């Protein structure tokens, strides 16, 4: 955190890690159609910490689900690295998620019968992949879980549970980590802690992070904020502050 004042070299030179082109998602609700996404073009670069913002129903979560291969868009393409994930079958998507993507969810999503350590190691075990011991130690120390590793989730506070989830997402150095309202269920102190971890890992570990949030304060920890309204990308801010994000959001709501 000593380096937090030093801005990294903008990673424009490298090719983007995630590229979405012309994404649309339409839900049939019987008699009418709901356009959750209507033509979104967006890209995310390596080591960038991006926040996706927008009012309720703007399509934030749908966008993230489509980017992460959890949901299939109606049209358009999503590339992760050189892989086009929009054409993949379920089994291939499963492998892709397992090996190349990390997830952090709003309500912790830890398995209650596994200890903190087992939860962190779970994706590696599912993939039958060895764990980089050094990286494991480093991440555990960074998130401050060293003395909580053998605890079951029920014995951990909300902030601690979310830190376990963060450690789990970061352990395998996935190409991109998707975080869905990671601070939604936390008090502001724990929330700030989590967000700082995310920011640090983007900078120090060159971890690409995409975070969906509706909280301007949370968004202000990111390098870049993209705004969504009615399924369209409508605005973008780099090096945001909470005030700036709030102002943009208000403007969006009024428009």
């Amino acid at each position: 955190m000593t380096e937090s004042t030093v801005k990294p070299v903008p990673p424009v030179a490298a090719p983007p890690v995630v590229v979405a082109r012309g994404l649309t998602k339409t839900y049939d609700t019987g008699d009418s159609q709901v356009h959750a996404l209507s033509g979104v073009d967006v890209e995310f670069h390596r080591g960038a910490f991006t926040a996706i913002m927008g009012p309720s129903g703007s399509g934030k979560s749908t966008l993230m689900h489509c980017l992460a291969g959890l949901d299939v868009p109606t049209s358009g393409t999503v590339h992760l690295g050189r892989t086009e994930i929009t054409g993949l079958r379920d089994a291939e998507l499963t492998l892709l998620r397992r090996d190349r993507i990390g997830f952090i969810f709003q309500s912790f999503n830890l398995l209650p019968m596994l200890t903190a350590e087992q939860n962190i190691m779970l994706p590696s075990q599912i993939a039958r992949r060895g764990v980089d011991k050094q990286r494991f130690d480093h991440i555990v120390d960074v998130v401050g879980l060293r003395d909580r590793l053998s605890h079951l989730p029920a014995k951990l506070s909300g902030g601690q549970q979310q830190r376990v989830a963060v450690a789990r997402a970061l352990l395998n150095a996935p190409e991109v980590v998707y975080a869905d309202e990671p601070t939604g269920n936390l008090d502001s102190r724990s929330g700030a802690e989590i967000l700082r971890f995310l920011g640090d890992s983007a900078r120090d570990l060159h971890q690409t992070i995409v975070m969906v949030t509706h909280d301007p304060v949370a968004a202000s920890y990111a390098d870049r904020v993209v705004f969504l309204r009615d399924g369209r990308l409508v605005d973008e801010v780099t090096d945001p502050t909470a005030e700036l994000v709030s102002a943009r959001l208000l403007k969006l709501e009024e428009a």
Partner: protein
Amino acid sequence: MLRTTLAGLRLHKSRYVTTVLAILLGVMFVSGTMVFADTLSASYEKSVMGSATSVDTIAVPSQPEPGGGEAPEEPTPFTGGQIDDVRALPEVSEAGGLLEDEAVLLDADGRAVGFIPPAAIALDGVGRFSADEGSLPSNGDEIALATSTADQTGFTVGDTVTVLDAEEEKRDFTVTGLVEFGVDPSYSRSGAVVFDPDTVREMTGVTVYSEINALAAEGHTPQEATDAVAGALGAGAEVRTGEEYGLAMAESLGGQTEMMRVALLLFAFIAMFVAGIVIYNTFAILIAQRQRELALLRCMGAKRGQVFRSVLAESVVVGLVASALGVLAGIGIGTAGSAFGGPLMGTGDAVSVVITPLAVVVGLAVGTVVTVFSALIPATRATRVAPLAALRTSATAAGLEKGTGWIRVVSGLLAFAVSAGLVALALVADLGETGLVVVTAAALIAFVGVVVLGPLLVRGIVRLVGVPLRKVGVPSMLAVDNSTRSPRRAATAMIALTVGATLITGYSVVSASTETTMTNMLEEQFPVDYQVSPQLTRGEPESEEAGEPQEASAEGSEGAENTEGAEGAGGPADGAEGATEGTGGDPAEQEGGADEAPETPAMPTVPAEVVAALESQPELGQVIGQRSATVETDNDWMAFVYTYPGAEIGVDLTSDVVEGDLADMGPGRAVMAEGHLDGVGVGDTAALPSENGEDLSLEVVAVVEEMQMLSGVTVAEEDFAKAFPEVDGNEMLFVRAAEGADPAEVRDAVYTAVEDHPTMQVGSAAEMKNQFSQILDIAFYTIAAMLGLAIIIAVFGISNTMALSVLERTRESALLRALGLARGQLRRMLSVEAVLLCLIGAGIGVVLGVVFGWAAGASVLPDMIFTVPVGQIAVFIAVAVLAGLLASVLPGRRAAGTSITGALASE
């Protein structure tokens, strides 16, 4: 409140599907049994009544009252004159008599049919039987067969059959008809052939009538005719109207149906018990899952009582609907059962299905009551939900039960200790029949122990088998952890399976042990390959089983002291021996006959030509005879004396020796079964009075165990011949094959030797063993099939538990999928969990079954050779694995099919 309940039920229909199925199956069993038994007894009744009501009056000779120690006398049959008397009555239009004796019928191979010859009957005038197919014989060349006899021999109308007359001369007849005697016990047991009256007199020499049937004359009621006949026949006849006779017979046969009904209902009870466990678990889980819903109700002001009633109302609705479906299914099963099973039970024509209101009401009541009763505890638990629980957000911790109280552990172990004590008591104290009750009680107590310790057992066993499983892969690792998340829930699901597993394994152990013990006994004490004995005669009622009454009757008619009858001392032991020998007939009975030689026809013996023919066959190594006689000792004691020409006692025929040495046997010496002669032991002299007045004085050289091969007093052939010169025939022959002879040739040799003597019964040790194990196998498969339903219900329970757990873990499953667990892996995780549960349930059941099967067997048969039917148990374990896989199919599909984003978004 009721509206909320019903709305909830409609919303969560799918959660109750397996519960409804469990209740349905149980109720189906109950109602099906009732319908089947009712239909069966109706058709019995119809078949009996049908033949009885075809005449107005039926008279049979009355049974003389057995008075005091006097032996009962044979009823005196009617004479031709009595029939003429009946015919002469103005109230009677027509009357006829039933001539009845026996005749030896030869099968297609020329051997006599049955151990006892079939009845030979003829209707002289009107009678209550008619031909169901073809017609009754009208001349001396025709014959009709009972349908049971026709089924047994394969003869049909038009075939030519051979019957032996009283002099054993063969005579051929053409089958003209088949008579369905239905369940009439006099003819269903050994079959019957029907002749015309003159032929039956020629063939058997019978002249008297065993039954008189009459039709009422015009203008007289059957009752008037019956009264008139009763007056004409006097005290020696029991006269009833056809209807009364039929009702009485139907009633006596009804006992059989009732026994079957009780047996089937016992299995239905087990099925309902298991269903009860399943229902309890379902409601318990549903209540746990609906905590927030219930808390919300409480928040909004619902009283505890209202919550309680709402849960109970739910159970009433579920129970009623499931029971109604079950009753319908039961009626279907009962109908099918009567259609297919009825003919097997000899009911003859199928009658229409009888559905009594009782069958419907009992089915509905049992299902509903069991359901409501099983929901009581969960409903009580529902009332304890605090209103505040509605405000709690995370339910993550709710699933994890921790800690097993020491009270649980102590009471569980106590139950096991008490159970072990009872088993030890039953085995040590030699309680006989009571021992079985004690063992059953011990088993129930041990079962309670399993229930109490269930959660702990599940956790312990999972920890143990989890060690290798965890290494297999993530799905099995997660499965191991999942299965211990709520040990109580898992334990209840598993225990439902344990019930059936225990019963099946227990029975299979008893069955296998009995078979080994019996086979062993046959091999050790009956070391021969074939046994040849004469066909027994039908006239003697004791040919079935009772050795003792015959003994008494023999004594009584000899005019000896009255006390003799009661003293039929050796009777029970010998009777039992006869029974285990199967075809051997009854030694006691044979002695009775031999003893009475002057008055009654001699006991049939094996003709000397047969002995000679057998001895001349090179394939046969040894032919041993058995002769016996009964004598009275000084102190009013009956002694049975045996000799075995051609056998070396202790080598060829043997028993377990209590004292002495069988090798010392020789002329002037005797071997005695333990306790046969009072106060005589090894080295003592046994004095036996003999026929010719010269007492036999024999030195007892060995005392052997009772109820084995050598019973009574065994003496040397010379001594026997001296004492009983008139007993010169063998009542039975034991034949041993020559060393290394081909079994097929040995069989041919035996049958060749008896070719000219069709009434000789040939028994083979191998066939006996086969028959015996066949009977045991049939019994085992029947019982296993009956218990199968309880197992199916238990599997439904496990499937239901899994499905509800999956529902609870929807978000978890979605998370796992998001983290990269493939659909197949998710399904495998659930399969492993279900198989684990099934295996633990079956495993505990197998252990309990083996232990208590052994205890039950050993308490009844002290010398039982304990045998674990490894094959059957292996099959059973395989079935458990398969059941687990099946149980996880639907929950697995559901878990794998849920959309990840939807599940993650839902709260």
